[in-house]
């Protein structure tokens, strides 16, 4: 596997490290229903920009935070707060001709959204693209 560690700061994303790791991936346990919509995904691309692999994910750059309390009546809630900096990681498979990773975010959801994979190209914003250096 290849573990990529990203840092974000003031809206910019940086690939901090790239590490080869011998490990077993957990199973994909979630049965996705057809209408489910990925909000963020990673793409591995080759030198011709062909997408070799895609991994859907929750958006790793938060726009709010979870707040915990020892009050048993309200143990957990959310607060609107986009951290200015933070870190996220992803495990991606070893694909030899993968040259770069792109981070993509879906355009804001609209009511009645349908299966993003079955239809036309989905509206997305590129969050960043990074050349892979570990070969």
């Amino acid at each position, binding site marked *: 596997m290849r573990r990529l560690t990203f840092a974000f700061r003031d809206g910019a994303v940086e690939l901090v490290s790239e590490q080869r790791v011998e490990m077993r991936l957990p199973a994909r*346990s979630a049965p996705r229903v057809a*209408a*489910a*919509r990925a909000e963020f995904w990673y793409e591995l691309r080759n030198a011709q920009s062909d997408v070799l692999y895609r991994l859907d994910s929750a958006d790793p750059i938060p726009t709010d935070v979870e707040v915990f309390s020892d009050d*048993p009546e309200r143990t957990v809630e*959310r607060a609107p707060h986009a951290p200015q900096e933070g870190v996220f990681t992803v495990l991606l498979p070893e694909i030899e001709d993968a040259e770069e990773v792109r981070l993509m975010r879906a355009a804001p959801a609209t*009511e009645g959204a349908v299966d993003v*994979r079955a239809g036309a190209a989905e509206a997305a914003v590129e969050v960043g693209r990074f050349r892979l250096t570990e070969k």
Partner: protein
Amino acid sequence: MGAGDGAVVGTTKIVDNGPDAQRYNVVVVAEGYRAGELAQFATDAQNLASTLAATAPFDRLMPGINVHRVDVSSTDSGADDPAACGGTGAAPATFFDARFCNNGIRRLLVVDSLRVVQTVNGEVPPWHAILVIVNSTVYGGSGGDVAVYSLAPGAVEIALHEMGHSAFGLADEYEYYAGCGRDANRDHHPAVEPLEPNVTVDGNGATIKWRNLIAAGTADCALCDPQPSPVPAGTVGAFEGAHYYHCDAYRPELNCRMRVLGQPFCAVCAGVIERTLQPHQPNRTLVSLNQAAWVPGTSDYRFGFRSIPNIQITGEPADADAARWSMLHDGSVYRLYSFEQGSDDRLYQFGYDGLSYAFGFRSIPRLTLVDFPADADARSFSMLHDGSNYRLYLRRAGHPRTLYQAAWVPGTTTYRFGYRSLPRIPLTGFPAAADWDRWGMLHDGSAYRFYVFDSGSNDRFYQGAFNPATGAYEYGFNSIDRLSLLGTPANSLTDSFAMLHDGATYRFYFQTG
């Protein structure tokens, strides 16, 4: 304050259930402990491991989990506790800069998560989940790739809740955002299906994500907080109010740790955790198979269709590797194969005896793979019989779109790479979303077929077939390119599958757990 305010002292594996490369690795990191307090951290980390081992469903999954403790000393004890939030005003010098009062919220306890990840990347490279214990008795914590919690009573619940998010992809099930009675515009969830497995906008018991767990008649979308539960604890249905909205979004049970800290995980979340950790379980056994078949004229495989719904596996050797298995039909016998655990070249063979897949039944019980290239990837494999030859396939490591092919050498116990075979076969045109860890093959009497799951989905997979003109398996060639699974039983292990064609029917199998 920061890296100059302490040191990484070392790492200890405090729960050792086997090689890190095979297990699920939880890493517990110290923050705000002085060197002289690291013995206390060892106790705190052990308490966390004990809590995990006592919490369902982790209690029955612990054999697949390792826990590592990373000792990090700090110059001072505790965490910043600004007076602006009602804290003590303490500002200790600690290695990961732990601080309460983030964004003006007293309980929001954060650390320098980049430094934590970089530390753990170096100390325990195959990590899956990182939990930071902050040496403070003030209640607080936070989530993200790094879960943080303090030593206040009950704060360990924060770690379990956050693992639900970061490690298992679970959504929050609470039906408010900033708090009950304080929200605006949280009445109705948008009509967009969330990706997470434990919340939905679909309140129909027949189609809801967790329909396999719903007993008839219990799905009632009128059940909404703050009512006390009108159904017994543990009842799975469609409880309205979830994912930060009061209505039009549903959660599986009245309560769950993803809704209220201190509650157990609901059945859906527990099932997600259990299935996620299956690949890490040691001595996972071949128990039985759930069987589906293709419904002619459709793009669907339905469980139980023209099938014995569940078939037992009997007589398996103790070291049969249930994570690496395949099946075929050779015109007379349905066969099942599994690798020997820890081996990349020894296979066990089972045959269907009319009641079960029995080890060695009408089979050479032990087979050997020979002459494969050094970069053959034996983490998964597939087999088929094409009317003449028994064939076995591995993928090339780092090249998931390249198959290595072998065939059985008659009169022997070996499958030889390249024997009566194209040694290397490319796979072309398959979607980028293909999950190359979950693939299978069959021969249906006229075509060699290749199947691979859609990444992140357990009920959609892609099909291609061998094109003799190009010498490649091509996505959609002579095939229904996208297929669906219907009626998957809840006990199915979806991290691997097998397929075969028996001369009449295309069949699909999941193991059970």
